[in-house]
């Protein structure tokens, strides 16, 4: 096995992950917080206002990153769900447990900022169209994942159930993405695509990209910290955790 392959094998094992992921968590936190501070100040203070929406356009710098991240996190949980069910990788199960509340917060933030944006532009806090409704479904899927774990006392069974819900729920993600193309919606189509130029000048989209990367990194830091916490909790009876705790060698 090459060194890289060994590295990834070790990342899959909770005990090794605990140490190997620590620098990643710190890196994500530093990058995430710096980019978010830069992105928010840039987006809210220096990016130009929109010719039609004026300053209310600026909420895009919070709305788009959180909506994007919520969907990406759900897909990641779906992949983890397959890994947990088929290969019985413990870390994949922990990943779902840790990501669900983060995704819940992101979906909630996307819905809240969407409503705040909708009020001055559309003229309504909420409209039942395919985009908003499918996003609300995503929010409830996250709620379901968090609740499922609380409701089932057996860790193993809770893990299986959560993995199944994570996998089944991924069906909703392409619906969110394409809802604005498949159906008539009040929500406008996407401003970004892989195949064409952004529907806004660089002075507007560069700070948006900064915010997107910043929020992804910040979530990465939260997830790494959460996973390390979860590892300690689940392996609390394992020899290596006891030894470290006894030696006072568990670094946050």
């Amino acid at each position: 096995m090459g060194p890289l392959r060994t590295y990834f094998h070790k990342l899959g094992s909770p005990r090794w992950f605990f140490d190997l992921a620590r620098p990643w968590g710190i890196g994500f936190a530093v990058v995430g917080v710096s980019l978010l501070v830069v992105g928010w100040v840039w987006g809210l203070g220096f990016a130009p206002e929109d010719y039609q929406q004026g300053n209310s356009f600026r909420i895009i710098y919070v709305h788009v990153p959180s909506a994007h991240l919520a969907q990406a996190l759900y897909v990641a949980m779906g992949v983890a769900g397959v890994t947990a069910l088929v290969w019985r990788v413990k870390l994949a199960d922990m990943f779902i447990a840790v990501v669900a509340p983060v995704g819940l917060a992101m979906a909630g933030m996307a819905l809240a900022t969407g409503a705040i944006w909708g009020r001055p532009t559309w003229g309504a806090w909420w409209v039942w169209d395919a985009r908003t409704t499918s996003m609300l479904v995503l929010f409830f899927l996250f709620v379901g994942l968090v609740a499922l774990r609380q409701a089932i006392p057996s860790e193993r069974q809770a893990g299986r159930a959560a993995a199944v819900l994570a996998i089944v729920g991924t069906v909703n993600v392409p619906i969110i993405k394409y809802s604005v193309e498949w159906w008539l919606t009040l929500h406008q189509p996407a401003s970004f695509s892989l195949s064409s130029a952004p529907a806004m000048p660089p002075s507007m989209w560069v700070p948006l990209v900064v915010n997107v990367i910043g929020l992804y990194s910040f979530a990465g830091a939260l997830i790494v910290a959460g996973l390390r916490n979860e590892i300690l909790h689940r392996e609390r009876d394992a020899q290596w955790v006891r030894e470290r705790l006894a030696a006072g060698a568990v670094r946050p």
Partner: protein
Amino acid sequence: MKAMNRQRRARLAATVLLLVGAAATVALTLAALNENVNAFHPPASIVGGEAPVNTSIRAGGMVAEGSVRRDATGLAVSFVVTDHQGADYPVRYHGILPDLFREGQGVLVTGELTAAGVFEAREVLARHDENYMPPELADMAAHQGAAPR
């Protein structure tokens, strides 16, 4: 991937089946709902008689240029909604319009279509597109004759 053991293969097959089943269920449901998933009736469906009359519905389209008539004393307003492809219908509304409401912009109106083909709106929402632009850039584009959309 090297030889996957039988148990894992069975689990993988079950997982794939689960995903395919879920996707098929949702796809069939959405296909059955078909147009009911749409948030509004397009102008063609209002003009073509597919939209129900005297029932609360939502209709959409663009506000036709030069069609907005405001009442001099009250909040009454009337305008024409069009799809720029030959289908247009008149809308009557009494109330405050959203800030983004303007001629040439998308709107979504909630209310009832009368037998005479006039849409009596209870609520008017503005629809905006995916393009964003600083005001200076929009001015420049307007001066060059390419109206910003």
